[in-house]
Each structure stands twice: as structure tokens, then as C-alpha cells.
């Protein structure tokens, strides 16, 4: 966070350069990005396009592993090679042209086949925050997947194949505190006001207010008062649509006419807010299961901070919080006089601070029991954790090696594939062309004169794969023809699309902000549609 009072002259060139993104992931997100060390395997168009959107925002360092030489085909689809570079190591050329984008980024290249590295340098990948791989044959991909899974290093597989794009995230476990949900419900606790809130609300009397004060009471007060009235009459807060409609009517009855004849804006806001503000305070089911997992975890010195904080949070919920998460401490803006709004805002803030303090104390106790640790948990970590408690996310991944064993984990695959709008068919096609490649050492349709024969061969591969999954030959020939038409072509606009998406997935993993795909994304540029599958 920016310190208040920082004079403008101190706003560094770096802050100015990154201004538009710092407004999204903050200085702390940027700091994580600048510490990250990314490895790209194969500087194809899809590979360099992915790195481009990581180099521009200022990732710490990149390493390119590539033993290919620049060919005319690269000149045709890859922006990070140039006419003079034909025949030179592709990794070196691409690295040079990528680093030229942003002097803040460091980089190296390794002119070596990834198979060799996997065979001879088992620790090669350990320094990396994230590995991005593209254009790998199935066998190499599976070895790489296994090595990185065992080493607990996130792997992103990116691919563009004709008009089809593919991204696969392989990460054992990914925890997110700042998921930045789009539409948040406010956390007002009107159904269970904390004592300070209750005391303040009860000290206000709408009846005796003069007209100016009455029309400037924040709507949270109006809803509180109306709810009291309601509860006296009906015993419990409004639940369904009908009751909420009656509740809105009750709010309306409390409205006075302003001297100008207009309606009171704060009451109108209150009526609009009934739906979101009177939602019962409860723990979202996703968070509930995180807390349950945290409760059953046995902490060890290597337990990650997220799970220590989650355990403390669970204890808060079951004791101090009486079944609720810590108060979030932020309220929406509402028509009001400054004094009352800020007074109420501070009540929520103070309660949030008090709740977070409880969690912090518990976190410190738990960490003390675990002895000295590599990663310290700070007060601001705990504050952020509590503030985002309602939006915590945990993704449990699956290795690609596991995915490729036996059938995919999608229930009725046949039903999926029979749906003409399902993008799953393209996943099957990508798996099939890989098997084709393992068998024939080239992708179907790669050579102009073999397109027709390859169609027949690919069909065999597709049906064999489906049979392995217990499905009949239900894929239409159209898809097989289209795949052979592509001949594994890496078309630039598809590479650029996938590169952009994949770069942001990497940024999500690096910053632990926003939520990565879980775990396979298919992009279909024919119809400009996409889908995500958890395989």
C-alpha cells in the first residue's frame, strides 16, 4: 500500500510504468511477480506469446529451453524471431527479442533438448516458480509432468493446433486468499449484529429525527430498524421472495415525503438493498470445506501459512465467531451524512480488526508450537486472510500422468461428446493426434500428400482412445477431417490468444491472486467459444 503523504516526486518510474496493472494486483502482487522465475520449454509462437505477456508486466526472470534452430516457418508465425535469424538457435533469438521488451527482466537460454535435461539433470527445474511447456510429444510431456509433480513445481501446458487452443494447469495444490470475486454480497450482519453495532443502532430513533437527519440516515440503519419491527411481528427475518416484498413495503411505510415532494433517497436505496443486505450471515460451502480440512490437518513445521491461518480461522468460527467468519469490515457506499456513515463504517472496521486480532493471536500460538519456520506469517497476512475469508479458494490438482491413465474423470463422456456444443471433442482430438504422433512420428496431415491416408489412420486412433474410455465410435468424421486439415499448424492468432490466457494463468499462480483454471481449458476459434474441464 502507498503510504499516505508520499509526495508525487517519489512515485518512481517503475510505479508509473506498471501503473495500469498495479491497480489490479497491487504492489504486493507486483513484488511476487518480480520474484518469479519462469521456464519456457520451446520458443514456438505459442511459447513466446505466453512469455511476452509475462515479460511486459515485469516477471523476475525467464529461462528458455529449446534445441531447435529458427526456420522460415518460425518467421511466418513467431514475432520473436526475425529474418536474419534463420538457422540460429531459436531459444537464443527469442530470448534476446523478448528481453528487449522490458529491461527489468533477466533471462537465459539453454540450447538443449528437454529429454536430455530430464535424463541427466534431475534438479534442473527446481529453481523455477512455474514451468510453461509447449510442442512436446506425449512421452516427453508425461516424463516432464511426473518430474514437476514430484517436485511440486506448477506446470502449464500450452498448445495451439489449427483453430484449437489448449491450456492445462498441473499444480498439486493452489490456495488463493485474494480471489477478487466480481459480485460480492455485503457483510452487514443485520441478522446477528455484534454488540457495538447493536448498541449504536439502538441509540438512534428514526421517529424523532428532523427531516434532514431522517433523509440522511444510512440505509443500513433503516434496514436494521425495519428488521426489528418485522421480527417483532413475525419472529424471523424475511426469507422468500414474498416476504421480502412485504419487507420492502414495510421499509416504504417508514419513508417520509421530503419538502420538495421527492422520495427520500436513503429509503429508496434501502428498498433496493433488501435482497442483498438481508441475506443470512453464513459461511459459503467452499469455505466451509476448507475450514473442515484445516481442522482435520495436523500441523507440521512445513505446513504452509495458508493452512495455519485456516486452522486458526476454523477455531475462531467455532468459538469467538459463534459460527460466523470474522466481520469483513467494509460496507457499500450509501446516501448518508458523513458523520453517521463514517461512524458506522468505523464500527464495522473495529469489529473486523478485533476479529482479526483473535485469529492473529491464535496463528501466533500455533506457529510457536511448530518451532522456527522459514516463512513468517505477518499481521497483515492475517488481516488479508480474515478480510477475504468468505472468498478463500483451494484447488486440488491432478497430474497429467494420472489424467492419461485410463479414462477421464467426466462421468458420462458419451453424453458430453454427443452434445454438439461441447468442446470436449477437441480434447479427444488433441489426445488422438498425440497418439498418432507416437505411432507415425508425424502429426496427421503434416505432409500435404498424406492428408487422405492420415484421415483413415487418425480415425483409428480416435476410436481406439474412445474404446479405452468405454465409449463407442461416436465422434463425427468432420472433426477428424478438420484435425487433418490443420496438420499441426500453429497459427499466429490462435497462439496469441492462448499465450495471453496462459500468461494470466501463470500470473494467478505466481501472485496467488485470482483463480486459475481447474484444470483444462479448450479454446475453439472456429466458433469463438471455450470451455473448462476438470479432468
Amino acid at each position, binding site marked *: 500500500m*502507498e503510504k*499516505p503523504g*508520499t509526495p*508525487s*516526486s517519489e512515485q518512481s*518510474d517503475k*510505479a508509473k510504468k*506498471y*501503473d*495500469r*496493472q498495479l*491497480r*489490479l494486483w497491487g504492489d504486493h502482487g507486483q513484488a511476487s511477480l518480480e520474484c518469479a522465475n519462469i521456464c519456457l520449454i520451446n520458443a514456438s509462437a505459442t511459447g513466446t*506469446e505466453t512469455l*511476452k*505477456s509475462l515479460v*511486459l*508486466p515485469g516477471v523476475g526472470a525467464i529461462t528458455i529451453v529449446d534445441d531447435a534452430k529458427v526456420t*522460415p*516457418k518460425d*518467421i*511466418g*508465425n*513467431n*514475432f520473436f524471431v526475425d529474418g536474419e535469424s534463420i538457422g540460429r538457435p531459436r531459444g537464443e533469438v527469442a530470448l534476446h527479442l523478448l528481453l528487449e521488451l522490458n529491461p527489468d527482466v533477466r533471462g537465459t537460454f539453454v540450447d538443449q533438448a528437454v529429454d536430455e535435461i530430464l535424463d541427466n539433470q534431475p534438479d534442473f527445474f527446481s529453481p523455477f516458480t512455474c514451468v510453461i511447456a509447449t510442442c512436446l510429444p506425449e512421452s516427453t510431456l508425461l516424463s516432464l509432468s511426473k518430474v514437476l509433480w514430484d517436485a511440486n513445481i506448477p506446470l502449464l501446458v500450452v498448445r495451439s493446433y489449427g*483453430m484449437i487452443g489448449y491450456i492445462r494447469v498441473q499444480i498439486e495444490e493452489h490456495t488463493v486468499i485474494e*480471489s477478487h470475486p*466480481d459480485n460480492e454480497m455485503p457483510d452487514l450482519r443485520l441478522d446477528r449484529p455484534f454488540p457495538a453495532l447493536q448498541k449504536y443502532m439502538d441509540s438512534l430513533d428514526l421517529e424523532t429525527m428532523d427531516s434532514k437527519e431522517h433523509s440522511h440516515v444510512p440505509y443500513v440503519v433503516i434496514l436494521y430498524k425495519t428488521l426489528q419491527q418485522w421480527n417483532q411481528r413475525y419472529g424471523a427475518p424475511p426469507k422468500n421472495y414474498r416476504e421480502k416484498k412485504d419487507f420492502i413495503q414495510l421499509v416504504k411505510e417508514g419513508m417520509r415525503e421530503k419538502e420538495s415532494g421527492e422520495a427520500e433517497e436513503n429509503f429508496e436505496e434501502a428498498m433496493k438493498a433488501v435482497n442483498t443486505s438481508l441475506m443470512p450471515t453464513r459461511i459459503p460451502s467452499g469455505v466451509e470445506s476448507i475450514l473442515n480440512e484445516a481442522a482435520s490437518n495436523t500441523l507440521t513445521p512445513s505446513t504452509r501459512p495458508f493452512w495455519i491461518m485456516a486452522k486458526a480461522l476454523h477455531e475462531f468460527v467455532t468459538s469467538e465467531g459463534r459460527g460466523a467468519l470474522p466481520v469483513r469490515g467494509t460496507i457499500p*457506499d450509501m*446516501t448518508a*451524512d*458523513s458523520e453517521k*456513515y*463514517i461512524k458506522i463504517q468505523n464500527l464495522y472496521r473495529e469489529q473486523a480488526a478485533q476479529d482479526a486480532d483473535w485469529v492473529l493471536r491464535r496463528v501466533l500460538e500455533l506457529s510457536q508450537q511448530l518451532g522456527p519456520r522459514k516463512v513468517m506469517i505477518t499481521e497483515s497476512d492475517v488481516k488479508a486472510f480474515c478480510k477475504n475469508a468468505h472468498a478463500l479458494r483451494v484447488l486440488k490438482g491432478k497430474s497429467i500422468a494420472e489424467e492419461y491413465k485410463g479414462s477421464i474423470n467426466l462421468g458420462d463422456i458419451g453424453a458430453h461428446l454427443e452434445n454438439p456444443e461441447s468442446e470436449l471433442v477437441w480434447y479427444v482430438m488433441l489426445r488422438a493426434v498425440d497418439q498418432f504422433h507416437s505411432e507415425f512420428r508425424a502429426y496427421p*496431415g503434416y505432409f500435404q500428400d498424406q492428408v487422405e491416408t492420415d484421415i483413415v489412420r487418425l480415425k483409428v486412433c480416435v476410436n481406439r482412445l474412445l474404446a479405452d474410455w468405454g465409449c463407442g465410435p461416436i465422434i463425427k468424421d468432420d472433426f477428424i*477431417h*478438420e484435425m487433418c*486439415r*490443420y*496438420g499441426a*499448424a*500453429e*497459427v*499466429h*492468432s490462435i*497462439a*496469441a*490468444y492462448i*499465450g*495471453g*490466457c496462459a*500468461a*494470466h*494463468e501463470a500470473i494467478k499462480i505466481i501472485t496467488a491472486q*485470482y*483463480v486459475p*483454471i481447474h484444470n483444462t481449458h479448450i479454446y475453439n476459434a*472456429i466458433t469463438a*467459444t*471455450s470451455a473448462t474441464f476438470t479432468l
Partner: protein
Amino acid sequence: MTAVDWGERWSEVRKLLERPGPFTHPDFEPSPDTLKMLQENIKVLVIGAGGLGCELLKDLALMGFTDLHVIDMDTIDLSNLNRQFLFRKKDIGRPKADVAAEFINQRIQGCRVTPYYNKIQDFDDDFYRGFHLVVCGLDSIVARRWINGMLLSLLCYEDGMLDQSSVIPIIDGGTEGFKGNARVILPGLTSCIECTLDLFPPQVNFPLCTIAHTPRLPEHCIEYVRILLWPKENPFGEDVAIDGDDPQHINWIYEKAQKRGAEYGISGVTYRLTQGVVKRIIPAVASTNAVIAAACASEVFKLATSACTPMNNYCVFNDIDGIYTYTYEHEKKEECMACSQVPQNLEVRLTDKLKDIITMLTESFKFQMKSPGLQAMVDGRTKSLYLHSPASIEEKLRPNLKKTIEELGLADGMEIAVADVTSPTTILFKLKIIE
């Protein structure tokens, strides 16, 4: 530049262009000539050389297009460099269009990007008629509406039938943070920018009384200084307007806003927030621009070659939680002000004042005009009702604002021509008097 035999250079694109497939447009005929046509005959205009524009030029050049033109009226700023990847620190202050064109022409041999350091309004219909496709990477809705109006004005109708050869497709992209959209517009045939005006609700400003009397948010404090304090104190001299790029200006606003915040117990006024509010900054990242531009480039390629059916016709993208896209057909609005060919009715009461009509034209979701000028057709002659410029005319016509429709001598069925910056042509309305 030495001529190199790059026989394989376009092999990836050629697979799409020279092989038949089940998902191509019905008009598609696989042929090596298509690539040649792309390179020799197709002229594409890219509007904007910013976050999307830089990407679009690269994408199109690497899809085989060689005759590219780019218009941008801006110069390069330090804050562009996190995503506008054709620009370097040494280029700051230079026109975006020029630098982008130089970079692409240097990197991609054979590609010829022609830059125009101009406003789109600097060019007339002859200029725009020269392009086969127009791709927009704009951050301004007014500019989008203007170019939409321009390309609609180029349509030729014969006996009410649209001459298809006069249709210049628009491929439009937009981004904001991690969200974006891409769409294909076939002017006269599919929904246009004005058909979907309600997707871009007008900017909401804080009520003045909140800013002046009941601030609650740090933004209210900043707006107080910007709107009320600055013109009162003129800290940098009489008539010195706020320059969002001048750190001294921002700093003055920041310090005063902080002081106001402290008076009311409002925290959270930061330098970054101050700058964001004053300049109305929209957050932007490289990745979203790359994605949306690529989606647009694919559509340009499809429309130019028929190698695949185009998107139908509107796609939204969001990668905050996973990667989400939604593609749907946005329907043409039957009474669209710009593309429907249906005369527009302007419903008024005889007692409405001219200024009420202007307010309606600017504030209603349907019109969202900026500074409309109105002329009436009375007895076959044009009578100016209100014009914003020149100043002498404005002054002369100003009293009309307070006159009613009746006092102005207007009657049911009369035609009113409205001119506004959102359209290159005037829009004809028919007055409809209601009770």
C-alpha cells in the same frame, strides 16, 4: 534487405487456405491464390495503436496481411509500456501510430504498415471506402460510434435492397482489466454499435451535493478538490486547467483531498487513487489485450479468406475466476438510430423546452449524445434551433433553450436534424407531439 527464399514461411496459414474443411464458409475455395490475395489485394485499417492496436498489427502481419494502415491520435506515455509492446522508453512522446508502424515494418519483412497520426474525424468517406475491413482497438465509445456511423453511411441501397459490395465489416475489440469483448459487425446486416448502446451505460458521476456536503468515500474528497476547489483557488494561475499528467497538479489535488478526508475522518486517499479518479484511469494488462486482439485478428482472417465461418457475433471474455467466455448473437435493433433505415421519432410535449429535448438526447440510454446541435425543417427551409459553435451563433441561439416547442413554432410531423460528435452524419428525427 536481401531476398531470402522462405518457401515454408507461410506454411501454417496455407494449410488453412489451401485445404478443404467441414467448417469453412460456404464460399470457400481452397487455393494458393487466397494467400496471394491476402498479401496483394486486401487493405485493412486498424483504428488505435494502443494496447489492442499494437497486438492487432502484429497478429494481422503474422496471419499474412501485408497492406495495413493504422490511425492513432495519441503519443506514447510511460504508463503504456506495460502492454503496448511496440514502444520503448526512448519512444516516449512520439506518435503511437508512427512508432508501431516502424517496428512492425522492421520486424516483419514484406509487411507495409502505413501510419496516420490523426483523429479518425480527419478523414472523409473516400478514405474509409478504400478499406476491405476495419478493426477497432479503441477505448472511446464516441470514436466507436463515429466510425460505426461512417461505415454505415457508405452503404448503398438500391430499391431498398442493400448492395452487399458496399459493406465494410467492422471487427471491434475492447478491454478493461481482466474483461474484454470482441465482436463482428457487418454494417446494415448485423447489429451495430448503436444497436448495443445499452451495453455501455453512460458514466455515472457522484452527485454534486454529496461531494460538496456529505463526503463518505476517498473518491468524494478527490472530486471535491477537482470540481469545486480547483476552479476556486486556481493554484497554478487563472485559467490553468487540470493536467492529469502533471505530477504537481495531481499532488496538489492529492494533498487537499487528504486534508478534506482528515476533516471528515475518511481514510484511503492515496496518490494512486487521486490520479486514477482525476484521469479516470481504466486498469489494463498485457494478457487481456493479447487475447482480445487475437480473437479480433482471427475474425479478420476468417472474413477475408472464408477459411472458417465468422463469429456470430459478440463474445465476452473474463479471466478473473478461471477463463470464461460467452458468445452469442446480438440481435439487430429494429428501430436502431444508426442502421435501421427507420425514421426516428422524437416524442415531445408542446410544453417541453428545447433544453429538455437536449437533456433527453444526452441522458437517455437510447441516444447518449454528447453535445447535440439541432436544426428544424420549417417550410422547406432550415432553421437553426441550437448549435454549440461557433460562439457567436451559440450566443444568438441560447435564448431558444428556454423556449417551448410551441414557442419555437414546431409542430407534429416536422423534421429535426441532430448533429453530434457521436456520428459523422446528422440524424433526422420526426417530431411526434404527445400529451
